[in-house]
């Protein structure tokens, strides 16, 4: 076993030192850090079997499962910034599977199942905290939608139920469930397996595992062109002037997915919108549940560090700007205090934005494209992080077998030309 990963040949697997309490003690007693690099630098090769564009959770999970499940390890993951710098590191790290449509529920349920064992599978603690997830209903029609979701979830074996204000108050004592508010809380969809996770750890865990399998992760490597000959992908060109060839190129980007697909001339039903989030200063833990209010466009959770993490819906107009807005934090604060009035003295520490690729039916675009060898795993809207593991698993299968597995069959690009939209739009239109 090589101490310095730099000497391992490309494409060759290495054994990584295991993380455990014992190894922690051993390294703590040693003079310095004896830990190996979790992921290494490599000089890009001229050719790979598979090039994955985007070093977020989707790209890295795809690499991991290609290696782990299909023995394909000659892979380059090209990341224009640092790994996890896009949506993977900017989302609010909420996991759930209580979707509306059978195909959505099945898909996200698989993701939650993979997340439940991810720490052990990757030997990297991703800190999945299944603390429960509740979606509040403030009016009749949203309560009806919550019941709709609960009934669909139950039929799919997903733990979901509608609870009443008294039960909400028991789970979240700080919540104002009185009927005197402008948006009284009538009930909530409660989903015990939902929760939060350490999003960066998921990225790093997949990266470390992929690296151990021999996958090359090239950070600060931006793709500026994709070569196509006779309607077949042949490789990519990078900002530093390299040409790297590969018969398979996978678009695993978010925010920039249309720009990458434009490089091969594949049109996308995607519009890029900023999605903002914010975090407060820490306070002692008081909120054990993820709280979402569609009517108030707000979601809140408290991390193990004590911070409240807030999110909302996407910005009102398309943009690639991630500078954020005051409107967002004003609205957010107002809505959070509407729900939990006792928090007015907490302070907002930081706000940020990520980019979301919105599709017309609130569902992703996965699988093959009209250009041979060019695969997409894009259009993730505001829910890409939740789907990281299952997307990686499904895309790996799709690439290995040349056709999409059943679990993502509904998410093909062709559905838009054929007018077969996925029904999650039903809930979004009715719902909140």
């Amino acid at each position, binding site marked *: 076993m090589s101490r310095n990963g730099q000497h391992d040949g490309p494409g060759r697997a290495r054994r990584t030192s295991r993380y455990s309490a014992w190894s922690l003690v051993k390294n703590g007693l040693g003079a310095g850090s004896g830990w190996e690099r979790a992921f290494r630098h490599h000089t890009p090769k001229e050719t790979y079997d598979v090039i994955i564009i985007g070093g977020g959770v989707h790209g890295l999970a795809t690499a991991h499962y290609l290696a782990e499940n299909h023995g394909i390890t000659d892979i380059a993951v090209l990341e224009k910034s640092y790994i996890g710098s896009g949506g993977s590191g900017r989302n609010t790290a909420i996991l759930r599977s209580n979707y509306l449509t059978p195909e959505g529920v099945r898909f996200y349920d698989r993701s939650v199942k993979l997340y439940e064992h991810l720490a052990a599978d990757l030997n990297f603690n991703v800190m999945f905290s299944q603390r429960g997830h509740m979606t509040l209903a403030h009016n009749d029609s949203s309560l009806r939608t919550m019941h709709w979701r609960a009934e669909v979830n139950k039929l799919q074996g997903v733990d979901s139920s509608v609870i009443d204000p008294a039960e909400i108050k028991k789970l979240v004592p700080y919540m104002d469930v009185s009927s005197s508010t*402008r948006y009284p809380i009538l009930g909530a969809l409660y989903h015990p397996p939902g929760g939060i996770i*350490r999003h960066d750890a998921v990225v790093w865990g997949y990266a470390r595992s992929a690296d151990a399998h021999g996958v090359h992760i090239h950070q600060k490597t931006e793709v500026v062109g994709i070569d196509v000959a006779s309607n077949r992908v042949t490789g990519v060109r990078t900002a530093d002037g390299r040409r790297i060839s590969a018969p398979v190129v996978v678009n695993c980007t978010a925010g920039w997915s249309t720009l990458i697909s434009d490089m091969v001339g594949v049109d996308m039903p995607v519009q890029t919108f900023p999605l903002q989030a914010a975090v407060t200063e820490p306070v002692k833990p008081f909120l054990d549940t993820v709280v979402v209010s569609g009517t108030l466009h707000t979601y809140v959770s408290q991390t193990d560090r004590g911070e409240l993490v807030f999110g909302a819906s996407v910005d009102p107009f398309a943009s690639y700007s991630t500078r954020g807005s005051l409107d967002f934090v004003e609205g957010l604060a107002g809505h959070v205090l509407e729900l939990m009035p006792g928090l007015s003295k907490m302070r907002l520490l930081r706000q940020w934005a990520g980019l979301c690729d919105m599709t017309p039916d609130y569902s992703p675009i996965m699988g093959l494209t009209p250009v041979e060898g060019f695969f997409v795993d894009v259009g993730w809207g505001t829910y890409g992080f939740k789907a990281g593991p299952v997307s990686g698993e499904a895309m790996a299968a799709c690439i290995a077998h040349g056709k999409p597995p059943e679990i993502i069959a509904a998410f093909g690009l062709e559905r838009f030309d054929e007018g077969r939209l996925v029904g999650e739009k039903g809930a*979004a239109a009715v719902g909140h």
Partner: protein
Amino acid sequence: MTRPGARRRAAADHRLGARPGEVIDRSRTIEFRWNGVTHTAHPGDTIASALAAAGVRMFARSYKYHRPRGLLTADIFDPGAILQVGDEPNVRAAHRLVEPGMDVRSQNTWPSLRYDVKAVNQLAGRFLATGFYYKTFIKPERLWPTYEKVLRQFVHAGEVPPDSEQPYFDKRYAHPDVLVAGGGPAGLAAALSAARAGARVMLVEQEHQLGGHLRWGDADDLRLRDELVAAVEAEAGIEVLTDSVVAARYDDNWLALVQRGLPHVAERLIKARAGTLVVAAGLIERPYVFAGNDLPGVMLSTAVRRLLNLYAVRPGRRAVVFTANPEGDAAAADLRAAGVDVVEVDARHGRTVVRATGRGGVEAVELSDGSRIEADLLVTAIGWTAPTSLLNMSGANPVYRPDAARFVPDPGATPDGVIAVGGIAGDGTREELVAHAEAAGREAAARASALAAVHAAGRPDGPAATPRPAEPVPALGLRHHPELFYATPTGGFVDMSEDVSAKDILTAVKEGYDSSELVKRYTTATMGPAQGKLETVNTVALVAHATGKTIAETGATTWRPMYTPITLGALAGRKFEPVRHSPVQPWHEAHKATPLIAGQWIRPEHYGDPAAEVRNVRAGVGIIDVTPIGKLDLQGPDVPKLLNLLYVNKWSKLGIGRVRYGVMCAEDGVVLDDGVTGRLAENHYLMSTTSSGAGTVWEWAENWLQTEHPEWQIHITPVTTAFASINVAGPKSRELLARLTDVDLDNTAFGYMNVRTGTIAGVDNCVLWRIGFTGELSYELHVPASYGLHVWEALMATGADLGIAPFGVEAQRILRLEKGHFIVGQDTDGLTKAYSAGLDRVVKLDKSDFAGKPELAWQAARGEYPMLVGLRPLDTSVIPEEASQIISDGGYIVGRITSSRLSPTLGHPICLGQVDAHLADPGTRLTVRLRNGSDTTVEVTAEHAHFDPEGERQRV
């Protein structure tokens, strides 16, 4: 004077005699409590200065290792002085002024600050190194929730009690020509010159006094401060805000300011649209990284000068001053003048501090030459950080200058609307900085004026404007400063808030987290309360060291809003959540209507017994307030063209006095809205929409008119609230209405689906529609809104002998369900196209064009679409809940119940539901999974309508 329960009163024995620049009012003494002990302060003292005056050195315990921590910066960014005050967590004690009776406590210490049990973590520290939690607690999986609970106990923060008071917050808008962020010498000078050039100026200072670093300077500094402050205060064009902060800058100089210290307002958010933003944030002193650098008694030179010169507090008795600049030298001089023994260690002569040692505070300092000095205070003055946050938020990332040992703004990247002055922009003498700021202030005023001219010219009637190009502000020079970041790359803390050591940074890089961003995320360095203002540059320097790159190559992470954290209360402000009521609302309230929230509208759901309300409509007469129904007044010769375009059915031949039902689809064929439109006169129509669709349909219609058919002569006026709308329904409705109107109600004169205008209860200009949502003979009255209550009361009074009763939304829902009318958004969803809603007879594909036509044509041709059907439960004792799923034998979802009620008229449950195409034939039996998990059987009915499917009752 001792409070009951207070244990003792601490003496302020570290307070010095009067200082020329002090900000405390010695004529008064106030009391407050610190961890249960009564202390005294003078007005003007911060919590920290008052405690320091009493000799308190330890203010807090650190996050992970629970190490003792004291004052470091003695300002708002001090990581060591974040305390609980009453029910307010995380108060910046080196900024917050003492108020009488304050209850101040250290956070996250148990059982006490001095004897903190979790301090045992220090012993385990080598195992708690960065990233430890990613490497352990992995197996067994089932124990992770337990581990997590333990981890959460370590949260390093104050608390929000559940019964926290909710103070008053508010907001203000401001439109200054020039906004100056920072009230130091440069900010003062820039504000003055901008105001003298004619600009309206807002000057914002985070601290409690203007003057910046001049306040703790020498006599010349104080004289200059007095001059500048006096001039600013005399200048009418400058509004000064102290104890206020420009927290963030957004696009087009939209600025978030928080103003504190106002009477009766906890905090005020000021939203300012500034012509030009002048950033005069000054410089923040950067800590030095060395072993023991977090011990209480290790302070920055600016902290020491603040304590000495603003608060007259002696921070120690014997000091080592490690200095690399004149400010450090001045701190040494100030300490000597205050009677402190001082040993200077001059970095410019190659001497370095390598270690501070002591238990609970500094006791000795070790130097690079191996010598050891006994001291209780170690002062460092090793360099500066430009807090460029507001410039980052403007899109300008700072660049590193090794000669000045700091990141500086890149003037080329700064937008025209933003100018940096003072220390953040460069170095110079007092006079140079003031002169530069004066030039910048004049240019700021000129740019603001030019922008205002451009905006004025942007209006159609605006004056022409010749754009004035922004003129560059001459650059300030940079003073040479040695690069001093750490004594050794393995000793001391780089982030005191997060307990991140220098060694942690090296470990992270070694493990592959080898960029500033990954180090930040892996170690959490720079993620604490100061958001990297003290920590970022040292972190970057260590990353650069570990990777072998330069600091410039390594680069800093982005500074995002907020500059300093601001309360949720200030961001939220007062609650402004408008609701809409009909003019009849007082009557509803007087008659105990149960309110229903329907979007912005508050409506009567029922008046006690919705089933009785239904029966009364079927048997006699009822009235319902339907004011929220959307109403559009359409005028012009081309209205039929618009109706033909918006609705799926035909409108060309609608005669005067006729009303027709129509459905609108979006361009994807999905049902968007429905309602009736009546033709009042040759070129005059009144359209109704659903309540929730009123705004959408209006904008949708305008969009077609303005963007696709600007040549059509049509004028649309929304009149939803211009009318109060009342539906009079039931077999006796004609009899009732005839008593109140001059309109001929005879069935031959005014038949079903007709419209008339006339007088009702003496009110002119009323519109009467004869339509039938309830399935009964009914008239929908639209009366001028101010007479709504009058007409309602007249109906109630006049109809008393007919058994009139009001009915609410719930009764209306039941009535319409009995009639099989769908509700858009309940029985349809975001994918329901017109044919799926059962609108075969309404959609007219032979029209030349209408919104959504191609999709509907293809839907019709393809068939096999889900269908909305009437459903009747076979077990009449079961009312399937709405949203119950319809399942196949194999348990697959094949549909759902969209509406369901017990019909008071029929005496059995009735439903509407969406089912897959092959299950839509009348007579088909379907299984419904109820919420309780049991199944029941329903049968598809021939029609949506369960009652009077021929519609005879409404035509009488």
